[in-house]
């Protein structure tokens, strides 16, 4: 690794020296532009390098926003509590329903709590990490996205970390509490596979919701003002998954299994743990396919993001 002072001043942070000093071949042209190729700035980096750069930029921007939030500590405490309380109320509504009935769609309160805890935790984690993506539409509209484009860090990392809001941890805490309550109250015969399914569900839930947020971000390049549509899929999806699948109509279930595979976030894993029949007669192993489905969603979302970013034309003002 190069330790000369110049290596630190390239637009991509630290930089491998052997690329810069290679006198032959296609690398040569980078010197014409300086270290920057406007058409594919990351061409010379592998995916690992991009990921590391992205994460580093993300960490730095997030840390900046946390410091900035801490300037108003009382307000931070209140908004974190508010975030927690908001999601608690969400669950209180379900508890109030169960104060009137014993079952909803054939499921008792602890079982619904298990569904709720799984989706709420993974959704909360995604909301903390990339939940600020819904501000992208505003940036596209007023042209401030240009600032992000000229900065030497991946745009996705910058957009995801924009206004990083630590207060959103409130939802994660609440989701984990409900999940803990469900596991404590439910009489589950735990097998190694059932134990394995729980972290798998959180992982695939994170991947699927994360993909949804990124795809929604890509959509904002096109939609701008219409960015509220994404809440129908993100928050709407989370709300849908809090209830048992038996509540919903078959067509809706088909849609959220085969078109927008939300069912893999928590329904299939949770039904496996609870020993309940799957909707739509899906095979038993479907619960274990969740991470694969999540990875597929992320790949598609990545493609959508690139297409969206490439279509960006600045307001020019």
């Amino acid at each position, binding site marked *: 690794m190069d330790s000369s002072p110049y290596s630190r001043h390239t637009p991509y942070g630290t930089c491998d020296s052997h690329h810069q000093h290679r006198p032959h071949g296609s690398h040569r042209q980078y010197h014409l532009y300086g270290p920057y190729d406007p058409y594919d700035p990351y061409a010379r980096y592998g995916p690992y390098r991009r990921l590391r750069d992205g994460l580093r930029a993300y960490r730095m921007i997030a840390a900046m926003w946390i410091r900035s939030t801490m300037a108003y500590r009382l307000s931070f405490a209140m*908004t974190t509590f508010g975030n927690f309380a908001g999601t608690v109320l969400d669950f209180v509504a379900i508890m109030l329903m169960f104060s*009137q*009935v014993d079952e909803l769609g054939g499921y008792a309160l602890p079982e619904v709590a298990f569904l709720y805890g799984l989706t709420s935790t993974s959704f909360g984690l995604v909301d903390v990490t990339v939940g600020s993506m819904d501000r992208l539409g505003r940036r596209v509209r007023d042209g401030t996205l240009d600032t992000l484009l000229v900065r030497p860090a991946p745009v996705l990392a910058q957009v995801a970390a924009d206004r990083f809001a630590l207060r959103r941890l409130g939802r994660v805490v609440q989701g984990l509490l409900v999940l803990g309550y469900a596991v404590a109250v439910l009489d589950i015969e735990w097998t190694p596979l059932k134990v394995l399914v729980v972290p798998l569900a959180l992982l695939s839930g994170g991947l699927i919701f994360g993909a949804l947020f990124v795809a929604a971000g890509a959509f904002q390049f096109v939609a*701008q003002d*219409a960015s509220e549509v994404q809440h129908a899929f993100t928050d709407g999806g989370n709300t849908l998954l809090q209830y048992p699948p038996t*509540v919903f109509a078959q067509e809706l279930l088909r849609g959220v299994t085969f078109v927008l595979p939300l069912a893999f976030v928590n329904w299939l894993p949770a039904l496996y743990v609870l020993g309940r029949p799957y909707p739509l007669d899906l095979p038993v192993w479907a619960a274990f396919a969740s991470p694969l489905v999540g990875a597929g969603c992320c790949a598609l979302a990545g493609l959508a993001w690139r297409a969206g970013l490439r279509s960006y034309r600045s307001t020019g003002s």
Partner: protein
Amino acid sequence: MGTGRLYAAVAAGGFRRYATYRAATAAGVFTNTVFGLILAYTYIALWDEKPHLGGYDQAQALTYVWVAQALLAVMSILGGGFENELVERIRTGDVAVDLYRPVDLQLWWLAGELGRAAFQLLGRGVVPLVFGALFFELALPGEALVWLVFLGAVLLGLVVGFAIRYLVALWAFWLMDGMGAAQLAGLCGIFFSGMLLPLNVFPGALGEIARLLPWSALLQKPADVLLGEADPLGTFAFQGAWAMVLLAAGRLLQTAATRKVVIQGG
């Protein structure tokens, strides 16, 4: 009167301001419809399990779902009304400009808010309700008079909602960053307006209290009027009383704020 025309112009401005964003309106309608769909299925399960829960039959419960989605943006129960703007103006000190205009601060914002609500009633209220009526069996009244009374209850609910959020926004004079206070007040609004669950389904004393709080004027009362479950005059009296009390409190707080507090950058 010149002042009447002035506030009408402010209200018209509020209407036109929101009418500009057509794509955003369409997006909001779509989102409300999706949520309405999800909630409708959960309510069907709930009322299947216990028919006549809270005094509603299933058609009334489904009507409640779609009325709630229709009024969500109108009442700005999830935020999106004037309050963020007012808080921001207080924080930056721009409120000084508002204060030396020859108009009343509270009525100025109320007029703008009513204009916004009027647009959102048309732009975001009608379509979800029509969608709900097409795909579910709703209990919508046939008589025009009931709809008129419903609109009256919506108007009074708007004034109550405005008065609450005006009070909360004014706290920014003392707190500077009013986000936290606004959020906590917003949560009470979501819960006690009946947005999450109709207030008549709330059990025991919680239900009794929730139905007396001002937030019930936003959604539960207008919906009950439409469903024929509440006496219109009693509803108007309840909403009117809360509106008077809260508007007066807002006026007191406004006086205190403008007398005692130094405006930022002013």
